[in-house]
């Protein structure tokens, strides 16, 4: 028996907005602790991790561990239909994930579970020289600013500032932000803007983004719900300059 009720449908909507643009099939794992998901995109460039502990939910029951395999595009189609004031309930039956929206009316959708061989990937454990927080909206805006001039974005951090920059054929852009944190080292990596944009779709998950950055290392972006009971994190492989 699995049942999870959330009064805020936006959490699922915003998470899967990002997740569905990264992976097309996914396995959610439910147990008595809560719901989690680990996924790696087909090209092994982005890793995404979602964890919603049982206290995130207004009601949560899961007697036995359960694997829920779904097509993320189908799931997103349904979640898009949620109104922000709707309660959302997740349950399963033989072969379906059942999503019910409770609002003015009671709306129920069934999404067929898919048959996939899935081994939940585990991300590489990396030690980063820097770690800092910036407002998520600032990060998202910076990405859009950069989009005007280039398809790649350089993210860097030094003692004082976090910088996002790009050089394009027709112009350059640079965004600087005083982070006010204790950072001893400089770090810089370059990423594909298209890939970073996918992660930016989760803009309703958290107001702050925790970032870990190194030199030519993956970007670690960590979003935490205010309640501390939910997290959404991403790991994005960098682009590296050719040696020649």
């Amino acid at each position, binding site marked *: 028996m699995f049942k999870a009720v959330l009064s805020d449908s936006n959490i699922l909507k915003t998470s899967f907005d990002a997740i569905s643009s990264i992976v097309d099939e996914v396995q959610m794992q439910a147990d008595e602790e809560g719901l989690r998901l680990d996924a790696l995109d087909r090209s092994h460039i982005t890793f995404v991790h979602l964890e919603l502990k049982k206290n995130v939910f207004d009601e949560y029951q899961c007697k036995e561990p359960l694997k829920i395999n779904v097509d993320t595009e189908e799931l997103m189609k349904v979640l898009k239909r949620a109104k922000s004031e709707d309660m959302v309930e997740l349950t399963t039956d033989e072969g379906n994930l059942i999503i019910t929206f409770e609002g003015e009316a009671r709306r129920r959708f069934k999404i067929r579970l898919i048959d996939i061989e899935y081994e939940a990937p585990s991300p590489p454990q990396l030690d980063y020289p820097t770690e800092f927080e910036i407002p998520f909206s600032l990060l998202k805006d910076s990405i859009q600013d950069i989009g005007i001039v280039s398809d790649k974005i350089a993210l860097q951090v030094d003692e004082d500032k976090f910088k996002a920059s790009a050089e394009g054929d027709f112009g350059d852009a640079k965004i600087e932000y005083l982070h006010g944190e204790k950072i001893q080292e400089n770090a810089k990596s370059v990423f594909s803007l298209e890939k970073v944009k996918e992660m930016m779709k989760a803009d309703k998950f958290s107001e702050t983004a925790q970032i870990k950055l190194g030199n030519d290392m*993956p970007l670690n972006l960590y979003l935490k719900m205010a309640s501390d009971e939910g997290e959404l994190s991403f790991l994005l492989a960098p*682009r*590296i300059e*050719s040696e020649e």
Partner: protein
Amino acid sequence: MMGKKSYLKKLTSKFQIPSVDVGKELDGTTPPSVFIGSWNYPKVYAGPMITPVEGDTTIMDTPESWIANQKTQEDIIRYRLNLVRGKQLVGVKDLENGLVEKLQEISLSSNSIDSEAEFHGKPRGVSFSDHHPPHGPSAVIEKFDIESVRWDRDLEKVYYDTDLLAKEAVLNLHQEDVPFSQIQKAFSVGTMGIGKRRRLVPTRWSITACDSTIADHLLKEVKYYEIVDKWRVHEFASLNNYYAVILLPTPWQYEWMEAFLHVLGREEIIFSDYEYYNGKKEYSRVGGCYYTCKMAILESLARERRQAGVIVLREAYSGYVPLGVFNVRENIRNAMTQPFLEFEDVKSALDYVDTKLKLSVDKFIEQSDLLQDILRSRQTTLDSFF
């Protein structure tokens, strides 16, 4: 720099080739062929194309068989300028119109059809375009009679299925190996799609609509396949063109680059466009050939069940005449079915292509977005950080 549109306009206005001379009345065949203009949309000039030539004239409107049968540029132009375009102003939703019904009839056939036409005046002019193959003189058509027509079974099936989305119809027909030109013709005269949503689609739009519908579908499939393990070069040359298709051992990404060399005069001019893994939203700045080429390459990748990044370099030389995007489609299809060469890295692949190009490959690199990207930096995967 001159845009591609204005360059091609200049190029196509250069051709003053005489076309077939016919009077107000024409007795002959339609290959079958139809033409729907885009001017004045949604009230457009639609009509059949008819040739005074008797017998089997299918080849005149079957671009798939031109390169395969080693037709020369002159052969193709001769075929096309033998086609007289009849036209009438019709609303795109007006499928009950008597002329439109006949256009649907002929578009569902795969054989040429005896036809008789009466024009308002003597057909005049000639039309060259980068998009559709050229055709001969045109005139307002007043009367159009055809012999009885036997329909192609696959086309007939989608015609009667008024619950089938136009997109699904195109994909089904492509799956059944119906030639692209037939699918596109039938699509343009409103014989596909949900009953009440059917309409005429201008020829140039219908070509890109069919190309991109098929390409999008194939790309979804191809993204599931394993990535090719080496750099590859596929190539083909015909009709004063050279095409090199470079396959990259990366996830899907695609760049189209075309150089026009001394076609007008002394010019050496490159146009290009590209997309990353997730594709592009806006219409390509180089026009329909972008989608045509993408479709033809994806056809081949899907058949091979492999994924790759793709860079296409095309050169058009002096003597080149714009014959429509079929030129790109069939040249690329031919390139993809030829034996290919394999390389260990990007440099040796480009060095090889450089020996085949008239323009230096550096000029292409200079103009490129994706290729430059690949040379300057590479996308790593998370696997390399474990």
